């Protein structure tokens, strides 16, 4: 009897210690189910997810990313020629994929400041990125 009480106390102490170390006894967490891909019949759709939640996901197929590439060159007239390329892609746990591209500077600018715990959403029509949403919150899970 005494042995089992002591064992229980030890077990509780270890569990509490582990929980404190992992931060599980901590603030509100936004429970977004990693990556969501919505495709409409007319070719439009959207995809969204949290970078942290997706990386930490139990489903290895899930991923979510946007890449911005800016190129500068000088033409024969000596003027700077600037080109912008944005590619966003998402794959959900069922391996449904969405990809879109854009060459608009304002789309690229919206990705400035996206951090490792951000929520990223993009909408598309066909292969063209139409909108980008970047959401930062105290409750979003960070990459582990």
């Amino acid at each position, binding site marked *: 009897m005494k042995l089992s009480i002591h064992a229980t106390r030890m077990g509780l102490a270890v569990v509490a210690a582990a929980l404190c170390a992992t931060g599980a006894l901590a603030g509100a967490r936004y429970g977004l189910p990693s990556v969501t891909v919505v495709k409409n019949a007319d070719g439009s759709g959207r995809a969204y997810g949290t970078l942290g939640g997706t990386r930490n996901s139990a489903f290895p197929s899930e991923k979510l990313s946007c890449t911005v590439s800016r190129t500068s060159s000088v033409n024969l007239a000596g003027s700077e020629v600037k080109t912008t390329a944005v590619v966003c892609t998402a794959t959900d746990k069922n391996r449904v994929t969405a990809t879109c591209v854009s060459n608009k500077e304002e789309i690229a600018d919206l990705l400035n400041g996206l951090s490792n715990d951000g929520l990223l959403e993009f*909408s598309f029509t066909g292969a063209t990125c139409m909108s980008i*949403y970047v959401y930062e919150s105290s409750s979003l899970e960070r990459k582990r």
Partner: protein
Amino acid sequence: MASRQWLMPAATGLTGLVAGFLMGGHTGESPSTGDASPHVVVYPRADSTSTQLPASGPVTLDDLRRVVREELAALPAAGAVRGGHDVESAVAEPTPEQDFAADQARAVLGSALSRRSWTDADRDALAPQFAAMSPAQREEWLQQYVQAVNQGRLVPESELPPF
């Protein structure tokens, strides 16, 4: 030549230099029109009624000061440059498609208000309408939504923003 014989040409040359300095910008060049920096333009322009040279006698410093003041006063007002543009500008009348989208969006909000609850399903229903509305319609819809949340008439059930 003897040194005294150099005096006359030197004095004459010096006088010419001073006179040229005082005469200033009578160079016949047109003032730059796109430059906002305060150039001193002495050359009388056809459209300037106040920039007048004295009828007789050399140009004085007071003349220069007067001309500078007149030219500065004639410059465009400071700050009258195009400011940073907003994400969207609301100028044009909405199209029938935009009006339809706005009606649909208002219906989604109305339904949510009647339940006093905004859900992810409402967000999904709003998404295509929100993108299709005009900037002014979006602004009006958001104002209704935000005021309802701030007044406690609408409770967002999840953290996802409405758009």
